């Protein structure tokens, strides 16, 4: 059946539905389309070309028990720059039938699932990064009082095809202790994930089936919480230059500790993580794929996630894997920590002022695993708690203050060290300091304006950057913006400037955006996952609507 027929059939269903609709049965869905006309691109394939990615999702709810879900994607005339080459034309991307009762759920088709914190398995969709690593199979879950259990199995989605490897596993959680009168409980969790990938021509010194296990313990109370998760992955061939090594065979493990302290007006959180060879793919050779195809688990960078243009330069990407590039660049994972503090200075105090002041602090540091690395024999012997070469460190302080009823601002200061050699396997180390002033003024009626200036100070790499942006909201629905960042001391590249102008209109659950300008190339990070994007200049549009 061609796709047009499928869509026509759905339209037909809609008409039927219109005639016989009952209160509990309804259609809903969303449509999103992002397009760019590339006036000028680093990538010659895209120069003077138009590309777009569109997603149409339709769901049908039947009696609040069944949900039918279908997603169609279109990459016409081709996919946006730096999305997987496998994404082409129009195809049915995901489809599922979901059956729910109070305690029981059964799904056939596309599965989105996460075990614990995702160290073994997380399948999700992120359109901005072009990730959809959902499984295609069956899942059933049971959830009652103190017990929850999920069992699943299937293949993994790989753009418009499915993976060769099979995946199956379970996740369980038990509430061991729960004090109903006061806020105090203890929860245990256990997960298993197996990946079976068909044998290759050579006989390898490891099994086709790679097993992984994890156990976790969670304690929560009114003003304190603590959890620990440990994961282990059985031995598997290390992937180097897109082929699975017959000689370099290692197992993997992960430790994650999290402690928090909560008081009214104060929050503290500390996280420690150690990852050793934890990258896990349903197809071994997809290891390190720039499009995250067949990636099974989620090991994001545990650093502050930034939202400003200059703070998004030299962002850390987690280093969960083994990489032996040369005798001076050998990695087996990462070890490090992150500390977050949030404090609310009360209203009507000297520092707090009339409206109070909100402060947040973040400190993080990530290093290579310390140990003896042997390049020639492809081996290592690691210390459990040793910190090797430093990958990244950051200290940031953010102060949010409302000064009057119509004026508020955010001041952000970041001090960052980024080891480009070890993180990106390129050259150099970058020490930088970034400062951002973000000011919002409420004007009369629904009008408001926002003005930001930012500066990145560094003597390294591409030197200093300056940026500013202005946004004007004509009313709650319509706004226009202009922003620009200038790498003003980068004489080698002739002081590149990246300016963008755009308008956006939103109404209810729909948003339309049009912008024109030049986008910085390099690493684009979203949700702790990063990807290289070529620099381009062009006209972009975006439509998002939920219905």
């Amino acid at each position, binding site marked *: 059946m061609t796709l047009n027929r499928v869509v026509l059939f759905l339209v037909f269903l809609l008409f039927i539905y219109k005639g016989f609709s009952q209160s509990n049965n309804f*259609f809903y869905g969303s449509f999103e389309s992002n397009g760019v006309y590339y006036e000028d691109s680093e990538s010659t394939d895209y120069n003077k070309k138009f590309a777009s990615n569109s997603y149409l999702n339709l769901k049908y709810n039947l009696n609040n028990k069944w949900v039918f879900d279908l997603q169609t994607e279109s990459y016409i005339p081709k996919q946006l720059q730096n999305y997987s080459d496998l994404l082409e034309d129009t195809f049915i991307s995901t489809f599922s039938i979901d059956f729910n009762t109070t305690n029981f759920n059964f799904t056939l088709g596309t599965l989105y699932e996460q075990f614990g914190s995702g160290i073994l398995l997380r399948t999700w969709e992120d359109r901005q990064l072009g990730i959809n690593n959902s499984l295609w199979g069956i899942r059933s879950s049971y959830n009652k009082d103190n017990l929850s259990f999920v069992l699943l199995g299937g293949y993994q989605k790989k753009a418009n095809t499915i993976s060769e490897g099979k995946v199956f596993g379970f996740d369980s959680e038990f509430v061991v202790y729960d004090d109903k009168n006061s806020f105090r409980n203890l929860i245990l969790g256990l997960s298993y994930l197996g990946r079976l990938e068909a044998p290759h021509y050579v006989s390898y010194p490891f099994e086709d089936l790679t097993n992984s296990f994890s156990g976790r313990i969670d304690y929560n109370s009114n003003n304190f919480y603590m959890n620990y998760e440990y994961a282990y992955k059985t031995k598997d061939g290390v992937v180097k230059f897109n082929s699975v090594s017959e000689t370099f065979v290692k197992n993997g493990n992960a430790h994650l500790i999290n402690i928090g302290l909560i008081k009214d007006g104060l929050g503290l959180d500390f996280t420690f993580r150690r990852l050793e060879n934890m990258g896990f793919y349903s197809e071994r050779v997809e290891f390190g794929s720039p499009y995250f195809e067949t990636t099974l688990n989620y090991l994001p960078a545990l650093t502050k996630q930034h939202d400003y243009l200059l703070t998004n330069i030299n962002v850390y990407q987690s280093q969960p894997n083994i990489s032996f590039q040369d005798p001076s660049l050998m990695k087996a994972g990462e070890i490090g920590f992150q500390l977050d503090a949030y404090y609310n200075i009360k209203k009507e105090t000297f520092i707090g002022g009339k409206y109070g002041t909100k402060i947040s602090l973040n400190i993080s540091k990530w290093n290579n695993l310390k140990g003896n690395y042997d390049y020639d024999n492809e081996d290592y012997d690691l210390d459990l708690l040793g910190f090797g070469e430093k990958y990244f460190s950051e200290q940031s302080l953010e102060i949010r203050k409302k000064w009057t009823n119509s004026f508020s601002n955010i001041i952000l200061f970041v001090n960052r060290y980024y080891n480009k050699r070890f993180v990106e396997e390129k050259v150099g180390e970058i020490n930088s300091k970034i400062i951002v002033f973000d000011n919002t003024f409420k004007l009369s009626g629904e009008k408001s304006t926002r003005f930001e200036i930012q500066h990145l100070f560094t003597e390294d790499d591409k030197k200093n950057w300056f940026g500013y942006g202005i946004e004007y909201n004509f009313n709650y629905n319509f706004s226009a913006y202009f922003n620009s960042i200038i790498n003003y001391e980068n004489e080698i590249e002739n002081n590149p400037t990246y300016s963008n102008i755009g308008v956006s209109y939103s109404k209810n659950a729909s948003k339309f955006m049009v912008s024109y300008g030049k986008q910085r190339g390099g690493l684009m990070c979203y949700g702790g996952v990063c990807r290289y994007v070529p620099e381009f200049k062009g006209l972009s549009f975006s439509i998002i609507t939920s219905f």
Partner: protein
Amino acid sequence: MFKKLVFTLILAFYITEFNAQKLVPNIPLETFKGTYTTMNKELNEDNFYILSFWATWCVPCINELDALNEVYDELSKELKFKVYAISTDDSRTKRRVRPLVNGKSWKFDVLLDENHDLKRALNISGLPHTIITKQNQILHRRVGYAPGEELGLLDKLKEYDIE
């Protein structure tokens, strides 16, 4: 191929015209206790509920919730409503949610949608995304936030209250 795109667009616009009363799906969400609750359990009173989808890294989301927090006390005297701040932080930033909420002294109930089950079920693509609901029926949806818009949202509540 172009025809297909046009066809999809027409279909999408056709469907946006299609305004049936929709319900909030009964999806399990995590509480600060680490245990699970469902939307039906939470939205069980004859109240207005504001569901605000946010994330710790989303600056406009925090602006919206800060602003809503400012006017919450005043307005909850006039109108019966409750706010749920539904965090879509995944495991990268989820641990920051509880400290942040306390550090900000927000008066809202907070639920965690870590792997975006509810976000996906409601077809939310952009943040912030705010929903007004009563008796599980979705009355109003809104994507994005402009300064002062919290007052617009509360005006909407008043409109529905009169109806």
